[in-house]
């Protein structure tokens, strides 16, 4: 099932987010488009500085408006968010769209009880009484699997374990039944067994409430577990998108292939060296010309006329599938064969 079957619930069109800093303009996001249907999960993969987190803060309107220049459009259920007022956005946040963050300890207020932090969202958006909101908070804590919710509701976040905190954050994000949940690396700081618990929880809750999820991560393993569609970001741009299966089993962009083959796995041969991507992620202050991946790309010389360094490849998406690369399909099939063999094991 792909998102094209349904009317998109969230639609991002040619989004550009540029910050002005003391050193110059940072092109954090540079022309990004995607759609997401209700009940679907879009996985956004990227490394530090790929623009994946900025994109999502922009959807909620949480970027620093004084220092950010934004272009493009973001439609949530047909409503344009980029031109919405702060008041309108505040109505939507926590209510129709919510967000969960990586570091739950830092992201929950240390000065308020967990129950208070959950119930105040509910009160704000539904006008419920204090008592009703508190009961709702307990119900949500129970729903996300916190033992003894009626006791823990009055605890402060620092008394919760890492996994429990992330559960509490999920409870807080879902207390008003939002239709869109943005999850920014929600499991990165967690241990694997707890990560598995949280991912199961998110999947269950999505089934129950039909929430659309944007799941941001750097971990392709997590993507394989949770996403329907995948968008790979590099240097502020989308380099490849498609269904999870397409992207993970038949990567079209050298960067995606590089990510897959640089990951060690629990199966497959162990005595061959990993295949890292050389170099480091680009500076968005002064990004490389042409294709932003070309300085690290193993195949840049294979493209005639040095186009990789002079001309930005266009992302052409057909049926939700596409990649931004100058290589022809034939070249790709030939060049990827060796690496893909390695990636296949992973």
């Amino acid at each position, binding site marked *: 099932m792909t998102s094209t079957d349904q009317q998109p619930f969230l639609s991002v069109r040619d989004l550009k987010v540029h910050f002005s800093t003391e050193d110059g303009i940072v092109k954090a996001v540079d022309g990004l488009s995607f759609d997401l249907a209700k009940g679907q999960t879009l996985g956004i993969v990227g490394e530090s500085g790929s623009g994946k987190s900025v994109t999502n803060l922009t959807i909620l309107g949480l970027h620093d408006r004084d220092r950010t220049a934004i272009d493009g459009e973001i439609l949530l259920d047909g409503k344009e968010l980029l031109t919405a007022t702060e008041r309108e956005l*505040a109505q939507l946040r926590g209510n129709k769209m919510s967000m969960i963050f990586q570091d739950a300890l830092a992201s929950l207020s240390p*000065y308020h009880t967990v129950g208070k932090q959950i119930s105040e969202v509910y009160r704000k958006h539904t006008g419920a009484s204090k008592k009703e909101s508190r009961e709702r908070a307990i119900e949500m804590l129970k729903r996300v699997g916190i033992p003894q919710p009626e006791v823990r509701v009055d605890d402060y976040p620092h008394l919760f374990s890492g996994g429990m905190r992330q559960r509490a954050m999920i409870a807080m994000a879902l207390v008003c039944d939002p239709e869109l949940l943005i999850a920014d690396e929600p499991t990165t700081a967690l241990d694997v067994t707890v990560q598995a618990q949280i991912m199961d929880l998110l999947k269950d809750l999505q089934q129950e409430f039909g929430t659309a999820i944007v799941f941001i991560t750097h971990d392709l393993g997590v993507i394989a577990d949770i996403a329907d569609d995948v968008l790979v970001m590099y240097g502020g741009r989308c380099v490849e998108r498609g269904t999870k299966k397409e992207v993970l089993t038949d990567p079209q962009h050298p960067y995606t292939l590089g990510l897959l083959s640089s990951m060690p796995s629990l199966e497959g041969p162990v005595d061959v060296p990993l295949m890292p991507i050389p170099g480091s992620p680009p500076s968005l202050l002064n990004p490389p010309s042409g294709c932003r991946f070309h300085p690290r790309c193993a195949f840049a010389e294979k493209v005639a006329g040095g186009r990789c360094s002079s001309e930005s490849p266009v992302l052409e998406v057909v049926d939700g599938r596409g990649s931004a690369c100058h290589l022809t399909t034939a070249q790709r099939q030939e060049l990827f064969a060796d690496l893909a063999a390695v990636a296949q094991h992973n």
Partner: protein
Amino acid sequence: MFRFLVRRTIGALVILLIVSAITFWLFYAVPRDPAMMSCGKNCTPASLAQIRHNLGIDHPIPVQYWYWLKGIFVGREYSGFGHCNAPCLGYSFANNEPVFGTIMDRLPLTLSLAFGSAVIFLIFGVGTGMIAALKQGKFLDKFATSASLLGSSLQIYFVGYIALYFLTFKLGILDQPSYTPLTDNPVQWFSGLLLPWIVLSIIFTANYTRMARSQLVEQLSEDYVRTARAKGLSRANVFLRFAWRGAMGPIVTVFGIDLGTLIGGAIITEQVFSLQGIGRLSVISVIQSDLPMLLGVTVLSAAAIVFFNIFVDAAYAFIDPRIRLA
């Protein structure tokens, strides 16, 4: 909380004991004999010994200290001066008065000065800092930041005399500084202290502006503040209930220390405006080599600072639930 208070009170008493012992030893070990000074020109060894006995300094220093300590609890008999009621902090030879009584006479003024100016610098300092943090990088912020830099580089003796000259003598807007007890006449109490309050507040206001601004700017970039906004809470709500809460701790800490110091006497302010507070008392006792008085003032200052430190720690635990007192 109870355990915390008990433990800290015991600790505070130990600190005061140490402070007073060191001060006592320092003062009485200096080669200035108070008996010699009050004996006058025609001093005979017999009268000198008599004065020593009257002053209670005819014993070894540890014994003297013990008598001094004992006096705090049970009072003390000075053969030359009469009885000094408990709590007796000693007897001032220069004033011919018990130290404790003199300090208690001067304390209301110093307390009025300290708390009155604290109200001013807290309101204006923190308020300006909050506005500056909200308007980060804008004109108001730059103005407040520059003004506070200017303010914190001023000196009381400079501002004090200028303000006194213009506001009181030239323009007559404010009353000549004076002290009337609050219970006698609140209006006079207020108008007499207004100028000292304002002058004493200037430097503090500037410091609190800068501190409140930097604390709030830091807090506003915290993750939990972002989460609060992601929940749809209004900017004002987020600012006051989340960011401000986090910024309060360090401000309360510095405030406690400042207040403790002020109760030890605003020496320059009292001097500039000729107010008879603890600060002036300590200056005079230094000039007159009135060692028992100086000892009393030192112990009082130490007690104020120790007390406000306990207060700060308790307040911190109240503000931040992560801190557990034990």
